């Protein structure tokens, strides 16, 4: 920059954007913020997202025992893997994830592998989220499972844009969460010494627990699953459409 040059535009981060050279004004093409933004995006895609999705995959199948708060790790049912696969197809069809922007011959092998790893964590998190939201057994499992099947099957053939898909998934997961962790959990009788005592203490709840084959978990389970669902949706929202620069 010469001595006559006067700064006429400064970016919010202090970056010089334009200078006045007297007769001619010049736009300074600075790569600083662009590089910083690109680095942030890379960091978000390859570090934050896998950690978030892995956290969902870890906590999605975790429950706490009602009597002693012991960890209970429930492996995902086969149907959860099917639902997760269908969801991945929906994410691709709605172009929330552009497959050409994630895997390309133009990318290095390392980048393709890293992208594959990120999508693998997304798949694992999806499977575990369904594991989290689907009741474990009995009539509720079949009813909620049918609702998931119906919704995902419809979504598979619907025309979505990414925003609408995210809203739709948010609503679907919120409804499933309310059903399992608020309605069904409140119909479950608490654990106590014997079934006769439980029946006298809470006859209606005990009847529902027996009829619907509801598992007894500690209240902490709902909190864990709430955060798992929230982290998943935030992760999905932050997932870039493409990793091309």
């Amino acid at each position, binding site marked *: 920059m010469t001595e006559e040059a006067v700064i006429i535009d400064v970016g919010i981060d202090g970056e010089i954007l334009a200078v006045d050279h007297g007769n001619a004004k010049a736009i300074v093409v600075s790569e600083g913020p662009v590089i910083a933004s690109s*680095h942030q995006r*890379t*960091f978000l*895609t*390859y*570090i934050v997202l*896998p*950690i978030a999705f*892995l956290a969902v*995959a*870890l906590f999605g*199948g975790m429950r706490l*025992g009602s009597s002693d708060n*012991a*960890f*209970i*790790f429930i*492996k995902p049912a086969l149907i959860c893997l099917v639902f997760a696969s269908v969801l991945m197809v929906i994410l691709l069809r709605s172009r929330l994830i552009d497959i050409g922007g994630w895997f390309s011959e133009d990318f*290095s092998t*390392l*980048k393709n*592998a*890293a992208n594959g*790893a*990120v999508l*693998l*964590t997304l798949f*694992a998190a999806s499977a575990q989220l369904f594991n989290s939201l689907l009741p474990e057994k009995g009539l509720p499992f079949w009813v909620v499972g049918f609702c998931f099947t119906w919704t995902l099957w419809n979504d598979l053939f619907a025309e979505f844009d990414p925003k609408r898909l995210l809203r739709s998934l948010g609503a679907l997961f919120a409804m499933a969460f309310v059903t399992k962790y608020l309605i069904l959990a409140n119909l479950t009788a608490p654990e106590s010494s014997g079934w006769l005592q439980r029946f006298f203490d809470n006859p209606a709840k005990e009847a529902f627990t027996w009829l619907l084959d509801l598992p007894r978990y500690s209240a902490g389970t709902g909190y864990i699953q709430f955060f798992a669902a929230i982290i998943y949706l935030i992760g999905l929202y932050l997932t870039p459409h493409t990793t091309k620069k």
Partner: protein
Amino acid sequence: MNTRYIHISAILITLAGLTLISFLYWTEPKTLAEVTIKGSVAIGTYAVDRSAFEQGLASFRKDDFPDARVAFDRADPEKRDAATQFYIAYSYYRQGWGRLSSDDTLFKPGLDAANRVMTIEPNYRSSDGTLAMKTPAELKNELEEGLKITPSDFNPMKLTRERK
């Protein structure tokens, strides 16, 4: 940070995370302490807690079998040590043994423990001189005999037999 390193980190984070998750769902630990124990089993550094084992042995020699089993369980929470499991089986035998009849509720878990010893170390032989039965096979036979009702159970000479 170089983009190449970030890509490598993503792959490593994914591999490490999925390994950890698979491990947790496979081993199903119930507490954070169990996570550590099962982790040590997985990486081959699991060892019996010697002080708890010695406590169990002291209680065993004093015929305080319930306390002995508590200490042995603490010493070998993963039930992987043949010697500890042998003493557990033996404690059930000694506690459940009776001159007229044996206690089935104690002999059954004793039999399970003896079977565990045979699974862990089929050729296990105790070096404890105070024990009359040295191998899990002998102990198993004694426990099985105690669980059965046979004509020999009504033999009055049984009253003269001694606990091993």
